[in-house]
């Protein structure tokens, strides 16, 4: 039996965001937007979902009088990502039966 893949992570944009954040200490909203080529509205919604799941922290502050949104992954997010990758491996190593 396969474990179900984490529904929070098993979506293109959310997975892209978490993969970016797993490699860096923290990243600005604009950086995530550039790298994922997502629209600002959609990205905001997906970041909020990740935050509600406790996978990322979002910090809003001001830089030169402009609002700045910094995102970083939480220990819970790291564990969820690792588990997701393990489950993916299980799916991919099984060859389909003829």
């Amino acid at each position, binding site marked *: 039996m396969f474990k179900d*893949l984490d529904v929070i992570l*098993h*979506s*293109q*944009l*959310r*997975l*892209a965001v978490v*993969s*970016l954040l*797993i*490699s*860096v*200490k*923290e*990243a*600005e909203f*604009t*950086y995530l937007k*550039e*790298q*994922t*080529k*997502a629209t600002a509205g*959609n990205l905001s*919604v*997906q970041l909020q979902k990740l935050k509600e799941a406790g996978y990322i922290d979002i910090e809003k502050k001001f*830089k*030169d009088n402009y609002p700045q949104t910094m995102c970083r992954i939480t220990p819970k997010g790291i564990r969820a990502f690792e588990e*997701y*990758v393990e489950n*993916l491996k299980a*799916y*991919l190593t099984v060859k389909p039966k003829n």
Partner: protein
Amino acid sequence: MEEKEINPAESLQLINSMISTAKNRLADDGVLIVFWGWLVIVAAMFNYICIRMNVEWGGAAWLILMPLGGIFSMVYGYRQNKKEKVKTYIDKYLKYLWIGFGVSLAITLGFMPFHGVKSSYFFLMLLYGLATMVSGGLLNFRPLIIGSLFAFACAVISVFLSDTDQLLCISAALLCSYVIPGHLLRSRYKSQHV
């Protein structure tokens, strides 16, 4: 990119591409390495020429240029920090490495009268070698690692030279471990940030 379901193979491909995007981003633009390389060479050569011409105040170059360099580095670092949209762990390690290097350097130079000019210059080159080797490893940039080996070699050679000729050794060490790799790092950074 949109919000949509993906299959496991696509997931893995996406994870790979995003992680390599974030990893390949070069953390250092090389500006401070090149700047410090030239600054120390100018100070060392000025000091050397003054000694050879029997001018006494050659050492003043260090007292004036080094604090100015420190102020420039702090202002530049602060500005860069504000500009960066993403902070990597490498940025953090490099920051603490160079702060530690700066403190070690200041202590070595500050206590020069206690342990002599000759051993101070020797430790100076070892510190330069250490900082460049670790930076080269963190940035995965071979010219810095090779440059650091030159700095270590210069330190060893300097043991057999007079403290005046050690200034030439310092200049050579900085040219090989800072200036040349720094310019190469800069051109790599520019090619990645067009």
